[in-house]
């Protein structure tokens, strides 16, 4: 089964759950910006959660399928069909995604997963180093991707319980845990409203709001950063590091967005606003455990319904 790209969309890349084991060589985790959406759409077509999917941004692609198969769409709504359920597509069918109606990033999983070679432990596209994914780059018109699986038999009519999904919003409250330099700042981070700027990408989203001023002038030795790290450059406008963020950074770390809320940030568009709310590390851990339990239940439930 093949998928031909008729229009590429603004930035359409192959993504997965990221690369593990290469951060010592400076290789970022990478993978889907909204990893939760990506995992759910994979489960909905009977794939392993980390199978390669397409991630598209603000404007989606137009794709033609050469054989019958099953797909699932999730994340932002790009107007190409229902989200969060398996959808049958027939040979020769064109699936056309438009501009994002909600969210910023859409995901398409196809039964069997995209057939993409593993580079450094992952199938995701790392644009900055031009590795992984489809030739290390975003998709272009004329690219032809292969997928392994045939169409799935889907039993009955049902919907997943959408409470499993992150509470997507254009004005989300995003939970954080404290960063190493949090005591060097006042409380502005958790009282102000921040707006997402257009200078945002898979490495990080740049916010504007009241400047965060550090009370200490001391320059820091660079140290590890992770997706979710909120760093504050000298201009006081915070940057939330995302999937393709470097592994080491030199700016003060005021906070880290908790893992379960990173999808909320991944789905913001330029102009959307967010607020931060602090939680404890224990709470952040518990939320991950809760999410994984919910995903395990979904996985079990779907095993009966997708053959």
């Amino acid at each position, binding site marked *: 089964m093949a998928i031909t790209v008729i229009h590429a969309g603004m930035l359409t890349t192959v993504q997965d759950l990221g690369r593990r084991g290469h951060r010592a060589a400076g290789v970022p985790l990478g993978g889907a910006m909204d990893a939760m959406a990506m995992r759910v759409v994979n489960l909905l077509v009977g794939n392993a959660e980390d199978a390669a999917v397409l991630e598209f941004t603000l404007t989606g692609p137009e794709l033609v399928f050469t054989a019958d198969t099953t797909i699932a769409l999730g994340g932002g709504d790009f107007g190409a069909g229902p989200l969060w359920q398996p959808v049958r597509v027939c040979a020769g069918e064109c699936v056309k995604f438009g501009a994002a109606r909600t969210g910023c990033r859409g995901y398409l999983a196809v039964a069997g997963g995209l057939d993409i070679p593993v580079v450094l432990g992952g199938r995701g596209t790392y644009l900055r180093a031009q*590795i992984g994914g489809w030739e290390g780059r975003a998709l272009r018109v004329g690219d032809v991707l292969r997928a392994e699986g045939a169409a799935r038999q889907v039993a009955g009519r049902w919907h997943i319980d959408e409470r499993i999904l992150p509470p997507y919003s254009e004005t989300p409250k995003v939970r954080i845990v404290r960063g190493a330099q949090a005591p060097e700042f006042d409380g502005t981070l958790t009282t102000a409203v921040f707006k997402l700027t257009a200078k945002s990408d898979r490495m990080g989203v740049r916010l504007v709001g009241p400047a965060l001023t550090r009370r200490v002038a001391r320059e820091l030795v660079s140290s590890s950063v992770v997706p979710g790290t909120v760093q504050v450059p000298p201009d006081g406008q915070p940057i939330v590091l995302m999937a393709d963020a470097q*592994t080491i950074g030199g700016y003060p770390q005021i906070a880290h967005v908790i893992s379960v809320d990173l999808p909320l940030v991944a789905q913001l568009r330029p102009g959307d606003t967010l607020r931060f709310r602090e939680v404890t590390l224990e709470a952040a851990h518990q939320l991950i455990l809760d999410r994984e339990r919910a995903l395990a239940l979904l996985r079990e439930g779907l095993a009966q319904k997708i053959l």
Partner: protein
Amino acid sequence: MTLTPLGDSAVVVALGCGLDEAGLRRVRGVAEALERDRPAGVVEIVPAFASVTVYYDVTQVGGYERLCREIEVRAERVETDDWWRAARLIEIPVCYGGYGGADLAEVAARAGLSADDVVALHTGGDYLVQAIGFAPGFAYLGGLPEKIHTPRRTTPRTAVPAGTVGIGGAQTGVYPLMTPGGWNLIGRTPVLLFDAGRNEPALLRVGDRVKFRAINAEELAAWR
């Protein structure tokens, strides 16, 4: 030794050591010890500067406090000498000045030196890899002679080509990929610091010693 959470999926083990040979020996030793005997749920161990970052999967860890204790126990009984005997010396050829080193004259002027003096000082240094990061294969090198410490540029360049050698504050290094950069550019190397096709993609590891050697433009062009 202090452990500080880095978000909800990693913890930074700060060893409080210097970034000289002895300090990096300890950093590397702790990383190796954790690698050899990983506590449950640990997914990645990354040495950098005077610390080791331990990435974990909270669903596989028997509690965060317990993970921290397990890390401490391993870090405290580190044997480092075996590793240090295997530390490597890596030579990096550099064509100084010219199109790859647009800021060489400025670095020299700022230090009150000639461009040749800057090259002599830069190649005379004995550098230690303190961390790999910022970009794949990028090595933070300590050991830059103080006379040529140069503050970062006030306006970073939007694209610095791969292989460019720069000075940023007290550090020097090589850009492994084309990236934005705020360092002062002094030269260019034909050696690949990062190659995803290699068995070990990054040329350098934390704790390696590095020497720079001057080559001319013909040698740079002919390098393969």
